[in-house]
């Protein structure tokens, strides 16, 4: 058995990016089916145009429309593509210098095998029928010996682009630390496990790889009670994406009896306005058959009915 628990995690976000005058010009061109480059201070024509001249650092403003044909100056064969690449089967990435330009751009070439690629080969853009002004609106394909296909209209078909959306999504296998893994395995048995720092003797729950005060591993395992004291709380009134409970409800820090660090959880079975610091609470566990290696085994905490704890008993744990 692995010493850690792990689970797949996908982190994704659609970045909305303003494009500015230079990249806006380039990407508007892509949307309209043409390549736009720019002449730099050293006389080179470069596509995509850099926003600022690499030598003088002046804003780029000398734009040049380029044909959508070019020459491969380097290439590689992507034998095992990764998610999001232009093809989900093996393909070529290449450096392609558009005709009329002096520097290459990086893009994909649609061929069946590496034997169809060579440095110096002629390629042309193959445009998507529906274009939004992103670099994935085209790929390149071999143009050996054939007349270039007629270009799509180079006149603008709409207002200049001011922004694009670039989705990013990354997949991970996320592992809990060995200490957190012990905590989650304990929960699967209905136990709440913490660990004690050998130096300051504080009990951390969930346990951490090292005591953040002393920087030493917290090795001694401590089983904690499922009763505790509310040290602080907030009433959630704001709806948000993924919310599972209808507001208003209470999210609280609960100092479990025997622990030195509070645990965050929900307080239910009591009107939100009656929750208070010092209130004594107990974990309400879900039915055992629903348990897993997760804090969600505890549905929420509910009042025990005991008298409130003295402020002095938790004042050092706020």
């Amino acid at each position, binding site marked *: 058995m692995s010493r850690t628990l792990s689970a797949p995690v996908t982190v994704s976000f659609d970045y909305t990016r303003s494009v500015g005058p230079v990249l806006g010009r380039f990407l508007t061109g892509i949307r309209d089916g043409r390549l736009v480059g720019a002449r730099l201070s050293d006389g080179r024509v470069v596509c*995509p145009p850099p926003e600022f001249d690499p030598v003088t650092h002046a804003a780029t403003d000398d734009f040049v429309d380029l044909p959508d044909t070019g020459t491969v100056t380097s290439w590689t064969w992507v034998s095992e593509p990764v998610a999001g690449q232009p093809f989900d089967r093996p393909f070529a990435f290449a450096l392609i210098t558009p005709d009329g330009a002096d520097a290459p751009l990086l893009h994909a070439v649609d061929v069946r095998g590496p034997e169809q690629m060579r440095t110096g080969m002629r390629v042309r853009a193959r445009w998507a029928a529906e274009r939004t002004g992103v670099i994935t609106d085209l790929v390149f394909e071999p143009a050996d010996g054939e007349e270039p296909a007629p270009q799509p209209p180079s006149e603008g078909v709409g207002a200049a682009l001011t922004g694009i959306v670039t989705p990013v999504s990354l997949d991970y296998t996320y592992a809990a630390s060995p200490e957190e893994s012990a905590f989650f395995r304990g929960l699967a048995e209905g136990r709440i496990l913490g660990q004690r720092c050998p130096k300051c003797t504080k009990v951390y729950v969930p346990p951490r790889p090292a005591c953040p005060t002393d920087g030493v591993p917290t090795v001694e395992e401590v089983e904690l009670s499922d009763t505790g004291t509310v040290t602080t709380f907030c009433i959630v009134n704001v709806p948000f994406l993924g919310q599972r409970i209808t507001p208003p409800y209470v999210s609280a820090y609960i100092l479990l009896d025997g622990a030195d660090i509070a645990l965050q959880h929900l307080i239910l079975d009591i009107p939100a306005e009656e929750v208070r610091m010092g209130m004594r609470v107990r974990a309400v566990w879900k039915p055992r058959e629903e348990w897993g290696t997760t804090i969600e085994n505890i549905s929420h905490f509910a009042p025990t009915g005991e008298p409130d704890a003295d402020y002095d008993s938790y004042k050092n744990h706020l």
Partner: protein
Amino acid sequence: MRDVAVVGFAQRQMQDYDGSPQCAELLVPLFAECYEQTGWTREDIGFWCSGSSDYLAGRSFSFVSAIDAIGVLPPVNESHVEMDAAWALYEAWLKIQTGEVDTALVFGFGKSSAGVLRRTLALQLDPYTLTPLWPDTVSIAALQARLGIDAGLWDETAMAEVVNRSLTDAEKNEYAVRAGGSSVADLLAKEMFADPLRKHDAAPVTDGAAAIVLAAGDRAREVRERPAWITALAHFSDGLQLGTRDLTRSESAQRAAAAVGGTAGIEIAELHAPFSHQELILRSALGLPDDVRVNPSGGALAGNPMFTGGAIRIGEAARRIWDGTADRALGHATSGPALQQNLVCVMEGRN
């Protein structure tokens, strides 16, 4: 300028780290090794600086969790860079130069295996014109390798010679995750992965962490007979646009070499070349004579934990000054696509 030396170094490298991506539990024993080497406690460390990335960890603020490994009561003077820890070392060296502190502990960590490393690294590219195509790092390096082959600057045999020497040297490196020399012919017989690169031309995906201790003047002399004094340290970056760079050379590495006063007299150079042909580019950009011993550790082709692959080169070079193998050694670190950013650290052994 204050005299600052590398006086401590600890590392771990592995293929699949069975632990959390914030690596705090991996850092605790590394710091313990640094304390043991220096005879210090954490109270002796004036400044802490780390290199790591949340994109690698797959969670936010991973470097904050890693600070648990330090223990921060009383609070510590701390900083972080989203680059290889070699750049954290640069910041720490500057901090010591300001006179504010005399000692620093630099560390880095990364669990590359948590995601698909070559894909994750597409996020360091231009987000408008490149990242949407997800050009993986191996493909970009392959485009660079072919440019040099086509230009006659190197060939597949020269690349295989780099691999064979590296993996042979790696047999003596207990931290190497890939080791074992064979022959150039055997290597060239292996199939292509990203034509013209074979899998062995690329550094293995590596998890790990490392820590380096810096100290000024007498604080360094109290730790070691022969501290590795940093005589020069410089870093430069090439531009963002891959298309406007000459990928067959490394202008930023060349400028870094010039800024440290050249590489004459260097006996050992630890070069951070995650791809075989990049060592050839670096040797030429840094102006290293043929008799310089390159990567006695096996280099990045034997193990390249993200965010410490460069710092480990500095530690490995320093180690060979401490033990008297070399009087003058160079550690190099790179970051970014196709050797975009380069740092050079020259160290000298004397009391």
